[in-house]
């Protein structure tokens, strides 16, 4: 393995070390998303629930994005001689 390959591999490993816990946190958050109380009604509830739907949607997007980055990083580690 050349010095550049070693450096690349070390950089990818550090990248994975950051991504792994973030991916786990986001996965857990997606599994238990915020859900407004069922007995809360009215205009304030309606506008809040619109925001809550946005949170859930963006949370899922974030989880996908981080999972994709982690997947690519792991694949790169394999391709770089892991």
């Amino acid at each position, binding site marked *: 393995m050349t010095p550049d390959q070693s450096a690349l591999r070390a950089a990818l490993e550090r990248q994975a070390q950051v991504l792994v816990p973030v991916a786990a946190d986001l996965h857990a958050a997606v599994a238990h998303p*915020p859900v407004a109380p069922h007995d809360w009604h009215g205009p304030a509830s309606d506008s809040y629930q619109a925001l809550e739907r946005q*949170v859930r949607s963006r949370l899922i997007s974030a989880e996908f994005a981080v999972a994709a980055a982690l997947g690519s990083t792991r694949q790169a580690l394999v391709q770089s001689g892991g």
Partner: protein
Amino acid sequence: MADRAVDPPGVPAGGVPQGEGPATGGPLLVAPAGGGSGNGVVVVATDALLTQAERLARLRDLLADSVHALGGVHVPGPDLLAAAPPAARQSVHEVASARAATRAASTAASDAAVALREAIERYALGEAQQRERMILLGGQLGTALGPLLRDLVLLGLPALLVAHAAGWPQPAQVAALREWMLDHPELITSPAFVEAVRATSMSLDETAGSALGLPPGVAGVVAAAAGFTGVQAGAAYLIAAGRPLGLFREGPIHVDRVSTAQTTSAPEGSLERLARVPEGDQVRIERYDAPGEPPRFVVYVGPTETFSPLATDEPWDLTSNVQGVAGLDAGSLRATRAAMIDAGIRGTDQVQLVGFSQGGLVATRVAASGEWNVVGLETYGAPAGGIELPDGLAGMAVRNTDDFVPALAGPQLDNHLLQIERQAFTPGSSIPTDLPAPAHQRSAYAATAAVIDQASSQAVREQVAAMDAFTADYRERDGSTVTSMLYLAGRGAEKGSGPAPHAVVSPGASIP
């Protein structure tokens, strides 16, 4: 001193009586201790909504941490990527996308958390404004109706005396009226009635002043000059009005310890604490000892035993209620202090107080007095909203919103303690007809306590856990003991009949 080995009263089978329970009531409304939002509004929300706000805050923090962590990723530089496999280059782009997506999620969570907090504050502000309007209206009505009330008393009193001399009302008529009231509990079991009682209690001084022909506001000024403010003033006028009739008169009380017993357990949860509040005997004091530690005490204070306005031999009476709300030296308060001294509680010993109804008023007065090292307070249906408590107390003040008794002390002004409210009987649910004031009954509060024990918000769970830990911390140690002492107090200075310690305390007397 009677020594006996008994277990403390337990929780009723099934938790709460049949027909009353979590299902018949509404959700918990929670106002965390010192829960000001920064703009003077006391935060009030359902337990479920607070739970949601807490979860959202945790999610917001988690996403902020994730954004921070992703910001710390040092992707391989162009020099390394030049000969790197395609996946490495792709990962660099995807890390950038992940940062952007996580930042967007973080922003959304933060926006939702702010919106939820604002919704909670708007609700709390609306509630506070509605309550203020009711109190203002009550004061105006009191001023307007005072002269009419005076005329009614002046004109109606002779007629009432004549009717009374003629034997009216007859016992059967009184019984029929009582039966009718029991059959129509909905008349006094609603939040609307409770708000009317609250407004009336706050306007008693203005009503009295108006009836005496004083200009608006003067009655309050007169009362304030004598040291009575807010609802205290109304209670003071009530005491003054009752004096010529011999009503609400305080006198000496005597206190006897009627039993001392070793117990085996510490209470766990609000329902079990409420179950230990005595009835009949008025004060229960539990002493927790652990090797090498100073003792800890839990003082349970019982509810009103009689609603007669004429003081008899029972200090847990209406006289003590009115004197207590007025901030005076009520017989039940003096009796509780005397019991605490007899139990060996020193000024430095840590004390937890639990009270129901008048017992809650007494417990709150003791906690506010600064005479004891009170670290926890839990009250149910206490008419004690105007009593200012110190900072840092664990516990909670619990009120059913359809129970008018706490409203007799006016609005809840102090927020140093977690406040929990719940409607005991929601519209459409069956209200019991066997006892008066169903929402003030111990069974109705047991149902609320059961819901508190199931609460999911951190604001409630933390306080229940803190109250539990005070006793469990000692009870779980090797060599620990729990001693339970029961006290019975009476009005008058006569000697107690039992062999127990005996104390006589007069109004205004300092506790030895």
